[in-house]
Structures are given as C-alpha cells and as structure tokens.
C-alpha cells in the first residue's frame, strides 16, 4: 500500500513533471522531466518518504533517440525499507542535469563517473573531472558509438 502512495503523491504534487509511473519486475519507477529533478529529490528526501540514501546513479546511452541519454537514480529509504528508481532523459546537445551533490556526498564521485563515461554534465558539481580515465583521454567510453577495442595508450604500444 505504501508503495502506491509514493508514486501517487509524486503525481499529485508534480503533475506537470511526472511523465510516467510503473513498477516493472516490482521495482518502483518514475520517469520525470529533467528540470524538476532537484525539486522532486528534495521533496522525496523529507518525511514521510524519507529517501535518505542515494544508492546508485548511472546513465544509459540510447543513440538514435531524440533524447539520447537516460539518467537512472536509485534512492533508498532506511525508514520504510523501500527503493525508488527515478529516470529522466537528456538530449545529446544539452546533456546537462542538476547535480545532487548538495543532497548526497557520494553523488560527487558517481556524477564524475557518469561524466567520464558518458559526457553528461552536472550543473552545480563542485569538481567535475574524469574519475577513472586519465585527463588526456578523448571521448567517453561507455557511449555506444565508442568502439569496443579502441585504445588510447599513454605510452606508445610495442609493435
């Protein structure tokens, strides 16, 4: 019962920003517009929902779609022991979304990882740099158009 109310409350509170709600395989999912992310997250962090923890944050690349990047957030509430997945789409030309660092400290590294792997930018991130790849690396390896076997060695490879 409680699961229903989170999604319904969201729909009620932000009718113009909630695009879709579903629960595939039992995972509560809400698709929202990107402008409303910070507002919705701030709303969800407070009681009665208490989604205090950012479990995970990642991105999926869909080349060919008009909105190429899909950000996926997994929130968790310790109080009610529930998870919530938030998704939003970003166009390739304006792959920018608000940073969650103001809410969660682990968002710092997670957003750096997404920036590194996909090239999505986060507005308000204090230190947006690559996390895994070196600074001289060109391109974003987890994009679908980045070749699987492409190499960018820092030292020339032996022939």
């Amino acid at each position, binding site marked *: 019962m409680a699961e229903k109310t989170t999604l319904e409350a969201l729909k009620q509170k932000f009718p113009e920003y909630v695009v879709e709600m579903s629960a*595939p*395989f039992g*995972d509560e999912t809400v698709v929202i517009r990107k402008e409303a992310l910070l507002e919705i997250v701030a709303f969800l962090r407070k009681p009665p929902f208490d989604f*205090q*923890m*950012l*479990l*995970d944050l*990642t991105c*999926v*690349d869909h080349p060919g779609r008009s909105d190429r990047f899909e950000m*996926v957030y*997994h929130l968790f509430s*310790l109080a009610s*022991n529930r*998870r919530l*997945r938030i998704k939003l789409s970003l166009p390739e030309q304006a792959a920018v979304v608000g940073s969650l660092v103001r809410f*969660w*400290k*682990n968002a*710092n*590294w*997670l957003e750096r*990882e997404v920036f590194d*792997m996909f090239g999505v930018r986060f507005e308000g991130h204090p*230190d947006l*740099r*690559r*996390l*895994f*790849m*070196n*600074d*001289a690396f060109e391109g974003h*390896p*987890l994009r679908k158009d*980045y070749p*699987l076997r492409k190499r960018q060695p820092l030292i020339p490879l032996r022939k």
Partner: protein
Amino acid sequence: MSSRIQREARPESLLLNMGPSHPAMHGAVRIMLELDGERILNSEIEVGYLHRGFEKTCENRTYFSLLPYTDRLNYVSPLINNAGYVMAVEKLLGIAVPERARVIRVLMSELSRISDHLTCLAAMAMECGAFTVFLYKIKAREFLWDVIEATTGARMTTSYIRIGGVRADLHPDYEPAVQKALAETRKVLKDVHGLLDKNKIFLNRTRDIGVMTQDGAISYGWTGPALRSTGIAYDVRKAHPYLGYDRLAFDIPTGERGDNFDRYMVRMREMEQSLRIVEQCLAQMPRSGAGVMAGGLEPAEAIRASRTRNPAQPIKLSPNLEGSGKAVHKDILADDQRFVIPPKEETYTSIEGLISHFKFFMKGHGIQPPKGEVYVSVEGGNGELGYYIVSDGTDRPYRLHLRAPCLHLLASLEELIKGRMVADIIPTFGSMNIILGELDR
C-alpha cells in the same frame, strides 16, 4: 593535468604521493596528500588504475559468457558476485532455481563472506604490525577455499553459480571439509579476539580513528559492515531477503562509534553469524535425487563409450565439474532447456542434445531475456552489491551497471583522514576493505 590538490595546496606545505603502487594501498589507489609535518591538511584520491571496462565488455558479451568477468570484481568473494549477477538475470527471465541449488548458493556465499572478512582483517592487522594475526587468518581462509576449490574447481575465479542454478553438484566429501573449515575458523576467531581486542597497539591505531557519523555514512551511501559499524542495522539479507535468507536464523551485529575498531569488530562478529548460517545450510541441504555419485565417466570416456556400447545403456558422468550429469542435473539446475546447458550425456551422445547445446551457445540464440530493466542487490563482502541490467530483448545486455559498495566507501576517505596523521590512513583504509577490482571495474 593539474589535480585539484596541486592547484589548491598552500606553497609552504608538502605534497606527498601515497600509491598507486604502495604496499598498503591494496591494489592501486593513489592518494595525494598535502602535509604539514605528519598532519594531513588535505588529500585527493585518484582511482581508475584498475579500470578495465567491465561494463563496456559486458555489453558486448552474451548473458552466459560474461559470467567470468564478474569473478574478477571483488576477487576475494567471487561467489557473491556470481550470485548477484545471476539473480538479476533470473529476475529478468523469471526462472526459479531448485531447492538444492538455492542452499548451495547460500552456503557458498557465506563461505565467501567469511573469507572476504578474513582477508580484509588480516591485511588490516598486518598493516598495524600484527603479523601473527595475518598468518592465522590466511590459514583459516585456506580451509574455506579448500571447500570452495573442491566443489567449484577454482579458489578465486570460480564462475560457479550459473543462470538457473549452479555449475556442478557439491563434492562428495564436502561435509567433513566444511566441518573442518568451521572448526578451524572458530579457533582462529577466538585466537584473533585474544590477540587484538585488548591489544594496546591495535587499539591506539583504531579506536576513535576514522570516525564516521550515522548521517555522514548515509550521505556517502555506505552499506555493509561499514554502515553497521555506525549503528544502523541495514543488511540486504534482512531488508530485502533473497535466496531464502529470511528462513535462516542470524543476527546483524552493529557498532556504536563508527570508527576503525568498530568496523573490525562488526566484521569479526559477522563471521560468527556466517558460520551459523553455514551450519544451518548443512542441516537444510536437500538430498540429491540421485545421491552424489562418486564414480562415473569422464567426458572423453563417455564419447568413446557412446560409440562402442549399446546406446540403450545409460552413461553416467562424474557429477563434479566434468559436467553436470543428467542424474544430478535436475537437483542443481532449473528445468528449462532454454536457459541452462543441457546435460553432457545428451550433448555427447544424441543429436538432439547436440542441437540444443549449439542453440544455447550460438550467436543470436541462447539466453534472451525480455525487454526491461532490473536492479538486484545482494549483501556483498563490503556492502550492497547491486546489478542494474537493461535488456533490449537480445542475447546481450544493453547496459549493465554495477553498484560497487567500495566506491561509496572510498569516496569518504578524504573526509575521514583530514586533520589526522599519515599513519592513520593505513588502518582507516584497511578497515574499509577496498577492493579495487570492484571499484574500478
């Protein structure tokens, strides 16, 4: 290529590199320190030295063939990684595993968890100077790995837990081996408690050092023993029970202060709980339908036998790793030809078996979960290990993302060591159990 710390450091302070190749950095992490004498003013952590494109690789492998890559994430407890991945795919496919396979999975996960905690604490104790503890714990780990090796065929790169069940049945002599491992581990835990709990040197380096508050731990997304050391009793096995953990009796040990010593203590007590679970698994283990066969033919012999013998005669394969023979197949693997490799007797001796074998492995066939996305998490050695899989209906995952518990732990290290001494980095880093294979992916 100037890093943040190089830009921000005061001109009079000393910049020092710790790692990436440093004996206490468990693999390859680089910590850049801004020092005033021994005191850490600021630090910056650089990861990625072990980045090998796990997620990208998985997008280009079939669901079946990417399993070995999961072994190499948290390489101290590969069986838990296997279980997490496999359960995510099973959730997509909607298949149930046989009871015996389920209990084997729990048994193997808990043995892995104990070995994970032993390794972490062994390294931590050694870095604080307690070399005896290191040797004791590594000794206990060997007994656990003997059990794992006898059944899975490998100590670390197991690839044992498969979609639909497990790779092969337990070794015929697994029970005495498990009992021995339990007894040895219990002895070692007792000895280690005696060696460390009131040890002045160990306490000086761990008590009230690396202290994390509850709010801080939540904000950093800490899970596992590290979160529990701050007093929050969150454990995926209890909160979102999987593999029937809700039917097993075990407690969640928690700490109070969230310092290095509490993280050590929580792990020590968690191992005792895992030993309890292993004992329950032994008692609960459903009998194999055929009984565990000791004999049987090797695959090569079976092929020869199928040519010479009267085909009506049954050919028995050895159940252990030489292939899951037909007799034990139904105990340990799901009864659905689309998702599991057919029994080896059929593959080697009948044309239908061969066809279904080929269909399983051929490109564009094999396991094809329906479109959708799924997030499944298990309690790994150092926290919530989550797999997020997006399926587009083909035989490869469209996107596979791993929630690595270490990443969230290591992200907080800069804050934990700020203002402390250089020597405090070592036990703080050690108590977190950072496994770079999992963090860097």
